[in-house]
């Protein structure tokens, strides 16, 4: 975390020397906070770039005591939610049925694909599992981000992991 904070100090001075290292260390958390909401690889990649742009634009507002992973994941998540809501409206308005993938396309995905696995979960469950298991955020940080009591976060997490255990068990049995 110290190394990340050092790099953030540089970025605050518009010094991008170590930005590639910063990006490498944080991209996975940001990407996963976006992809499970928008479910579209290229859209997620666009939003990934936008997240870092937004972060750099407002970098003087970043408080060094905060967890940069949680901060970036929150920006990414908010951008993804905005995009998801906009797209949802467009699809409903235009009745673009073609946006739904064909059955064959779905079947082509491997059974143990991480996105397919997470799709077993509700939106909140997916959020919490992604933030805790993939992004390594603590439950208290997740509770802050999601504006939910920590007990509720734990309850949802527990429910989600039970579902996943069953799902993974099934796919391993077959």
């Amino acid at each position, binding site marked *: 975390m110290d190394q990340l904070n050092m790099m953030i100090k540089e970025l605050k001075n*518009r010094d*991008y020397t170590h*930005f*590639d290292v910063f*990006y*490498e260390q944080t*991209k*996975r958390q940001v*990407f*996963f906070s976006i992809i499970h909401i928008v479910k579209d690889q290229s859209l997620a*990649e666009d939003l*990934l*770039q936008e997240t*870092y*742009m937004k972060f*750099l*634009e407002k970098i003087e507002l970043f408080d060094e005591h905060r967890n940069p992973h949680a901060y970036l994941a929150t920006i990414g998540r908010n951008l993804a939610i905005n995009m998801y809501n906009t797209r949802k409206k467009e699809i409903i308005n235009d009745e673009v049925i073609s946006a739904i993938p064909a059955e064959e396309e779905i079947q082509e995905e491997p059974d*143990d*694909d*991480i996105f397919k*696995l997470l799709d077993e979960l509700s939106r909140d469950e997916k959020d919490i*599992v992604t933030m*805790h*298991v*993939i992004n*390594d955020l*603590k*439950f208290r940080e997740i509770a802050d981000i999601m504006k939910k*009591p*920590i*007990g*509720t976060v*734990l*309850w949802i*997490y*527990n429910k989600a*992991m039970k579902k*996943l*255990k069953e799902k*993974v*068990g099934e796919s*391993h049995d077959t």
Partner: protein
Amino acid sequence: MTHKELKHYIKTKAEDVEIKDFSSVIIQRAKAQPVKVTEPVREPKPSFFRPLTASLITVFAAMIIVLVLANQTGVDPVPDNTVLENMENVVALSTVQAISLIEVMDNELSTSNTTILRFGPQEKNDMIRDELADLSRYLETIEKLYASNDDFEVVDEVKDQSGFDRRMRFRTRDFMDKLSQYEIDYNQTFNPQTNRFSVLGKIKFGTKTYDLEVLGTKGSRAITLTVKKDELNYVLLDFEVIDGKDTYTVELIKNDLSVEKVTISLDQIDDQKVATLTFVEGTSTGTYTFTIFEENLRKIISIHYTLSFDDEVEEGDITIRILTLQQATIYSILVEPEGRASFSFTRGRMTSHMTDDVQNTQLI
């Protein structure tokens, strides 16, 4: 597959996903962005009419309020029936919860009466035992909730003594089939315009008396109930129906500071009552799901727990049996953490509030 293995599995799968390197594109874009120059915000010119308009609005608003109040009789009419109609069981269960917590403020269960019989990794087990110390405050409520089976035998009647209009009486059973008697003397007010009601009174429980306040809206299944030991020590309880489940949010205030907040929700799954206790604020962070089963005609409390120790989640099952030792009863607690060896210990069980006559006749 254990919890740890599943986490590792998800993490590995996530690492398999290839994420493109956009760092150079982002740097280019960031460098191309102009440095923002903040313009000074120009203060709007003060308007001569603005303060005048504000004053006129205030005067008119005050006049309307005076007219509305003048139309009212001053004192809300006292209804003939209880304003707590159809909410008696909710008030009864809320009172049971509040009283059991307020009693703990006086007589906190000591952790020194615990005896470890067998244990796994000591540190984690100690932490679980600490969390269970907080949980034990709620076991009295759980016992009474399940043993009374939603029948608190509530009697509400008119009373013209001691400055109170009404009296509500109800009683509860616990797992040893002992009875506890509660009495609430109260006055009620009801505002037909807003449909809001309030109840102010005193709860008599054993030799102790507590102040009670209940606020609510007639027709809606929601109330706020406060039980006070004194001005600085009290229990605040909100009842509402969330997603079809009766949900109680209970806040414990000690010396004017909120020390704990929990939610207890009640659900019916496959003809079985399921209670879920979640620690929302305070030192504990666990979630406990209770079900009850019988073993040799004795009721056993079965709990599934999820606890958070920093970023580690600890989950498993707890079985609580009540043991009778001479005239005292204790909880025998068996903890079975997921993926680790089980351990057990005992805790004192609160039995001090039973009414004397009932205790004498029912004691096993």
